[in-house]
């Protein structure tokens, strides 16, 4: 009689409520025990500190001495802080221009590396190497490349008679320069795009070709829609990542000139670990969290219009 019911479910009680068998209970316990390390880690190292920072954001605390409850005073000060808006603007500029640029470059590289050419694996490795190079090393390299006097770019510009550019000293150019720097290490997005491109059905492309579609038409009408979920994935990850840019700003420009490259997380760092205004810095961090959350939610909402899932519906 027990075999007539789904595995692990014993015959229902007269009320219709299934009763878990000993085996199912044992399985559940085992499952939770396996999950326990991760859950403990999540609670101890993510959720706990998040809650603590949320409470800290309502206090005045330097990391030493007494914690003074101030309510929303930190948030009041933040919204009157000129540098809050400056850093948010700089970060938004960097993210909203940098991510599309990164996606474009990564996609182009992936298309090239998807071609059947000799030694393509070597090329794939070469283009991925900057991604595994430490960020600090990359930044130092680019600071050298951008140097006004002897940097590679200005040397080439002088060679062709073009006036050199003050890449990291001109407030109007420093952010585009940092975006250019970020295009160096798009290996991760490139690899994800490459995997997606290799999953595009050859039959569809052949069928389109037989119908008279050229390469460009096939690319935009078939390939792009089919890899749109991956584009969406890279877009989400890119926005979240670039909104948290820190190392580049700290090493390349330290927020200058005139705070034109003062990024949000660098400002949080300064407030938290140079000024030791832990409550204030926690408030800044929570505002960033909410901004990223809202942007991500908007992206998910808009994704319904342009992301195509072969199964017919987006994941819930």
């Amino acid at each position, binding site marked *: 009689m027990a075999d007539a019911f789904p595995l692990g479910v014993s015959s229902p009680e007269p009320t219709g409520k299934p009763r878990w068998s000993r085996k199912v209970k*044992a399985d559940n*316990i*085992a499952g939770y*025990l*396996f999950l*326990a*390390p991760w859950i*403990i880690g999540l609670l*101890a190292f993510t959720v706990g500190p998040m809650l603590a920072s949320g409470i800290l954001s309502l206090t005045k605390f*330097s*990391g*030493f*001495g007494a914690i003074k409850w101030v309510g929303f005073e930190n948030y009041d000060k933040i919204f009157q802080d000129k540098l809050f808006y400056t850093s948010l603007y700089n970060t938004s500029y960097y993210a909203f221009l940098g991510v599309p640029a990164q996606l474009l470059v990564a996609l182009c590289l992936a298309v090239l590396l998807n071609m059947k050419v000799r030694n393509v694996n070597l090329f794939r490795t070469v283009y991925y190497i900057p991604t595994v190079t430490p960020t600090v090393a990359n930044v*130092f390299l680019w*600071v*050298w490349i951008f*140097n*006004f*006097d*002897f940097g590679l770019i*200005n*040397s080439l510009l*002088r060679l062709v008679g073009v006036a*050199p550019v*003050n*890449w*990291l*000293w001109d*407030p109007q150019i420093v952010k585009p320069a940092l975006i250019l720097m970020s295009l160096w290490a798009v290996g991760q997005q490139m690899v994800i795009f490459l995997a997606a491109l290799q999953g595009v059905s050859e039959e569809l492309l052949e069928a389109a070709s037989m119908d008279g579609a050229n390469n460009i038409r096939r690319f935009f009408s078939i390939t792009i829609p089919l890899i749109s979920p991956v584009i969406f994935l890279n877009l989400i990850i890119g926005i979240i990542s670039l909104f948290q840019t820190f190392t580049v700003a700290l090493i*390349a*420009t330290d*927020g*200058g*000139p*005139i*705070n034109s490259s003062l990024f949000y997380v660098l400002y949080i760092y*300064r407030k938290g*670990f*140079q*000024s*030791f205004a832990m409550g204030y810095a926690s408030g800044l961090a929570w505002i960033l969290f909410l901004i990223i959350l809202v942007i991500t939610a908007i992206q998910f909402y808009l994704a319904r219009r342009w992301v195509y899932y072969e199964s017919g519906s987006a994941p819930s």
Partner: protein
Amino acid sequence: MTKRAMSRRDFMHVATATSVGALIAACAPAAAPSAGDDGGGSAAMEEVTIEFWVNQPMARSEGLWDTLMAEYEELNPGVTVASLIIPHGDYEPKVLTGLAGGTVGDLLDVHPMHNATMALRGALMPLDELMPTLGVSDEEMTKAWDYNVWRGKRWAIPRSDNPTIMLYNRSMIAEAGMDDPAELWAEGKWDIDAFDNTMDAVSGGEGEDRVYGCALPGGGTIRMQCVWIWGNDATVWNADETASAFNSPAALEAWEYMTGAVARGWAPTPAESNIPGGWVAMMGQRRLCMQWPGAQFVLGGQAQFIPEDVMSEMQLVPLNTLWNGNREVRNATNSHGIYLQTDHVDESWAMCQYLISDEAQFRIIRERWTSPMVKRHAESEAWLGSLEPNLETAEMWEDSFNNIRAFSHLPRQQEMDNLIQAAKDRIILGDATAQEAMDEVAAEVDAIIAEVDEEVREAGL
């Protein structure tokens, strides 16, 4: 009845439970005795370990530091020193984070930038009551010792100092057809006009051939820019350090001079000098003629990054006199203090006594890590014998020692400096006049000083 073997499921359950238990045990606080705890033996056989947190630039010569610590341990049997070397840029955050977490060394290096902040945060013990047993009287102290005094108390003992003195490439100046600054100094003619003219003459070129005169005016921080402000009879803070004064008319003239040096082309912008190795690399490439970092900083360590042939062209000279005829110079006195809550005050103070003793100081002097900070050391063979004839003279150094003026590094100095440097950049970029930029930032800095004042009052300092 046969013994039933453990099933795979049971094994997995046991393995999982064991793993979870191990994870929880690993997260539990350590029960082992921490460094510094006594072994529990009799008082006579007590072994003590003191932890010394060291700011890396002062311990770059690793052999020297190990030798000093070994000598201290010989003089203090039963005491072991565990040194933690921390990079300069990370030092203050590391110490203050450790303080917040309750894990700090017994002895802490104290750079002038950090002195007031560390004292305010409870990292340092006032040393005034211990000073009579240090072995150095007030009369013997050079002005370098002033850097460790804040709010009327002494918070650290200097170990090595770095009075400002200029390092320049005499070949580059000769090639530019200018008089040698050391000779001008000897004749009493090394003034602001001579400095300006020299800078204009040596700088020029384009691209890889670009040469700069001196890096400091365009870059730097307020603790270096103060020298020009002092040189125009102005100050950075007001008399009781409750407000900024760097936007006074006289100070604004100094700012205009400093930022004008970039416009005139002989000082690089911060971006132009932001290369691996910084100004040291630029001097080594003969792209920078003069700098004044505190020469010990170079001679004690960074000279190794300047090629030998270029180093042979170098010469030291005291700072030129400025507009008011003076040459008050800043000093980067690297010091060490005792953690306020340490359990090893006696051993830590013994370290302070040892490091300022003749034996230790002569060793540090010979390695060129310090100038004499005890007046009698200026006449020692260790100091006079360490000078390089083609580079420096004792008279030059004496000139610098006598002109040391302590710059008061307030708590939250770094935060104020970030604002001031952004204002200076506005002037360089033509975004604002000196008056506009400094007036605006002065108000922001004053707000920070007011908060600091409140904290200081609450701390009872």
